[in-house]
Every structure is written in C-alpha cells, then in structure tokens.
C-alpha cells in the first residue's frame, strides 16, 4: 500500500512542481527532482513525525536550491497553506525559490552551500541536551563537499557522537559546469565520510523500498550517520535527466511542456 502511495505522490508532486517551474520560468529542477523521492519517503514514510500539523523532526535542505521540493509535500500535509502554493508566481506568496525559516515547516534559511551539517549539529546537540526526541535529516549535495565548512561540521558532528543527526548526501553526478570528476574529483566520498567517524551507507535514490529499508536501518544506529543516495539529476523528465544544464530551468514551448507531462505520466503508470 505504502509503495503505491509513494509512487502516486512521486508522480503528482513532480507534475505540480513541473507546472510551477513552467509558470515561474525559473528554478533548479534538476536538483529538486533528484532528491524528491527521498523527501517522499521521509515525509510519507513516517520518518518525519508530525504533531498538531507541525513536524517534530527536522529536514534541513542544505542544498537550498532544492527546497521547493518540500513545498508541495508541506502543502499536502497542511503545514503550508494551499493559497501560498497557488498564489506563488501569480500573487503575493511567502514561498521563495530558496527556503527560509519564515516559511512554515522550513527550519533553516539555506541557499549558500555548506551550512546544513553545521545547523543540524547545533540543533541535534541542543535537542539532545534538552532530552527532546527529535531527528534531524540534513540533505546536502555533492557540490557542497567542495565547501570547507562541510568538513568542519563533519569533524564536530563525529566528535559529539550525535545519534539524532542523519546526513543525506545526494550524488547526482552533476554540478553546474559538468561532472564533478571532470571538474574537481571528489574521490571516494564514502571512505572520506567513514574516515571522519560517520556511519555511512549508500543506495539508489529512486527506489522507495530500498530507501525505506535504509532509513529504518539508519534509525537504529546510535551515532552520526550518512546515507549517500545515488540519484539521477532531473529524474522523471527526459529533457532533464542526467543533464548538467537541468540545474537551471530553461524556457520550453507549450508543446514541450505538454509532452514532458505525458512522458512523466507514462513513466509512473
């Protein structure tokens, strides 16, 4: 049952987001669609728990350009008002291309890279001190591994041995100018994380069953952990899939817009 829910949500939310990108004629679709299935499992799989329509657990979208992937989910969960989503691109709305902590359900302001693990560590540390049962998922991109602050934060996270922080590292093998390997090789990421003392696993980013299993496993690990999710940039849209240029939205014709939605339907039928 749950897996058909995931699949339906994956289709519906992709469609909503694609229509919004088309309306706004801007945004970062490649990065949003690469991490969307992970978000769906986190929110609809019960990994982000809710109380009185408010999240108990936090999702820190360190790759801030993908925050808009959270908006339709938060709308669906009645955390963001429908009118904010509907108005966005037409009238006044609190929603922005990059998230900020004034938007319901969005814990931190992000946009510049390399902040998420530091934020998550601070949140995790103080909530543990307060004996609050809260989990913090921070989603980072491989591009953020170029930021020194990411490694500073990993050092502290490992030292504090926080069991409530999970890093989700979206590896879609594309940064703005191409493949990281061809730009500046990041080397063996898993080994690097493990060498810092972070329990690290990796899996496919678009297989709901695997994602759910991995999150269940990780939740039992009582130390800082990381799930490397190997994703496809622009997943769900042929014009974007695994293409570096899909980082930014490119104008498309009405026909191409319709065709892309048909292709999407075909993929999820």
């Amino acid at each position, binding site marked *: 049952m749950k897996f058909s829910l995931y699949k339906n949500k994956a289709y519906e939310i992709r469609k909503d987001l694609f229509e919004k990108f088309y309306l706004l004629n801007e945004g970062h679709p490649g990065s949003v669609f690469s991490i969307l299935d992970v978000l769906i499992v986190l929110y609809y799989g019960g990994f982000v728990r809710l109380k009185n329509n408010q999240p108990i657990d936090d999702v820190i979208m360190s790759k801030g350009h993908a925050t808009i992937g959270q908006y339709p989910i938060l709308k669906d969960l009645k955390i963001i008002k429908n009118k904010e989503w509907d108005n966005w691109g037409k009238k006044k709305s609190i929603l922005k291309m990059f998230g900020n902590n004034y938007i319901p359900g969005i814990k931190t*302001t992000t946009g510049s890279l390399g*902040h998420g693990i*530091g934020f998550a560590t601070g949140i995790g540390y103080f909530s543990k001190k307060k004996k609050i049962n809260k989990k913090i998922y921070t989603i980072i991109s491989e591009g953020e591994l170029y930021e020194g602050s990411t490694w500073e934060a990993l050092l502290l996270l490992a030292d504090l041995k926080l069991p409530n922080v999970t890093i989700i590292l979206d590896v879609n093998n594309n940064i703005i100018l191409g493949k990281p390997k061809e730009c500046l090789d990041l080397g063996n990421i898993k080994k690097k994380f493990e060498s810092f003392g972070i329990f690290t696993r990796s899996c496919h980013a678009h297989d709901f069953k695997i994602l759910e299993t991995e999150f269940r496993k990780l939740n039992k690990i009582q130390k800082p952990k990381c799930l490397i999710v190997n994703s496809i940039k622009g997943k769900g849209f042929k014009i974007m899939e695994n293409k570096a240029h899909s980082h930014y939205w490119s104008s498309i014709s009405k026909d191409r817009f319709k065709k892309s939605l048909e292709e999407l339907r075909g993929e999820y039928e």
Partner: protein
Amino acid sequence: MNNLEKKFQRDEFIKVIYHAAKKNKKIYFLSADFGAPALDNFRHNLKEQFLHLGICEQNMIDFACGMALEGAKVYAYAMAPFLALRCLEQHKTATCLMNANVCSMVTGIGLSYANSGPTHYSTEDLACLRSLSNCIIYTASDPDTAKLIAKKTLKLSKPVFVRLDRKASYNLQSKVNIKDINIGYRYLKKSPNKKLLIISHGTIIERALIALKNLSQNFNSSIDIIDLIQAKPFPKNLRNILKKYSKIITIDEQTSEGGLGSLVKENITHYAKLESISLPDKFIFENFGREKLLDVNGLSVATISKKITKIFY
C-alpha cells in the same frame, strides 16, 4: 580616568555571562580556541555549557545558530579578525537572516594584536559587520561598559556583535550606566557652547580625551564628546543631537573605508563640517607596538589635537 584598577573588557563581559549561565542552563559559551582568565572559571565550573569548537569560526557560527533555533542563548567567542571576517557569510545567512539568538564576542578590535601584522588586526570589522542587516553592534570603550553591554545582551534575543578591546584599561572618568547602553551612546563631556562634537568608540576614545585635555580652556568650553556604544542600529535620538552641531569629528581605530566616519556621514541630515580621524586605507606592517603604531598611523594625540584645532576655527 578612574585609576583604581586596570581590567580586561573580555573578562568583565565573561564574568557577567558566567553568573547568568549558572542560573540559566540555556546559555552556552562556544570558543574557537580562544581563552581568557574569566573563561577558565566558566570552562571549569560550567563544563556542560561550554564547548571548544576547534579553530573553525565558520562552523562555530552555523552550529551556534542551530542551537539558537532550538532555544539556546549562545555566545560565540574568537579573535576579532577571524570571528568578524572569516565567517562573515555565516553571520549573514545564518545569524542575521534567521534572526538567531547568537552573540558574537569580537575580541581584539583595531590594532589590539600589535605587532602581529595585518592578518591579526581587526581594522575593517565595523565596516563589514555593519553592512549586515538585522543585527545590533556594540563597542566597549572601557571595562565597565563591557560589563553593562554583557548584561544588556542577556535580555536580547537576536543577532548581536560585541566589539571588545584586547588590552586591560581603566574605566573612563565618566561612569557608564545601563541607561547609556539602552540609548546607545553616552556623553563623556558636555559643553555649554556646543560648537564641536567628537564621536568615538572603543579604547581609542582615551586619546581623544587626552587631546582635549591638552587644549586650551577656550576649546574645552565648546567641545562635546560622545562615546557611541551602539553603532547599529544607529541611535535614533543621536540623529537629532547631531543636528545641533555644525562641526563634527569622528575618531576610530579602523581603516578610513566604511568605518565610524562613514557611519556618521550616513546619519547627518544637515550641513556640517566633518572630519574623520582613522587609520589609513592600507595594511600596516611596522613593528612598533600598538601605541606607537597608532601614533605613526594618524591617531597620535598630537594629530588629533591638530585636527580639532583646525576644524574648530
């Protein structure tokens, strides 16, 4: 000056936070490998509320903001040039943009760390920090001011930068009180004639007072001095006070670009003759000790006196 005892601003500040932290378990103190005698007490007695973050100011600020988002009151402590500039983007994106309850203790402003050279001088922190929106910036000119600023920060729940000197100093003659901190400035000297106003902050203000003392009574009865405790937001009431003066001098231990002189210029709405006395817009490499470095870089008592005399007539 009050000659009872020289004290360190940072110790006076930390003592206040220490006593508050004993009662309030939400207060945390983070250090990027930077110490102080008063901090030893904190580290020893309040181990659970102190964290050594390693020498990484960027992460210290992100971490502090994460804690603050969960309800902590966080003090972040490091050497001024690094806490102000190394993590300036963290201050923007994390502290200020998220309105985090984080107080950064920017310690060792100006040429405090003479003779370490330009890497350790904090001669542009005011220009950089005041360009950030949504923050409060305080500067302490003596130990008692540092102590009262500390008390004030305990009542605030937004981004605050406190600029402290490195050296031990005496309290200035004019005793500071909490009302001064609340309004953001204090008169160190008020004259009947109000011909010229000197605005300064930090320990460099000591030189302005000496310069004034050396001048004749004729000057003294017409010159006022204000210690600008709160550089940002610029005290509203002070804008009106500035209107009363046709001649204004600023004295600041920062480079000429974007410092106190620029700040005052931005807040003047009338025609006034303005003179900014500051460090030159260059890197300082000489090894003369702080006092001599100030002397040869435009902030000697003689230069200040000369400029006061020049603008006065």
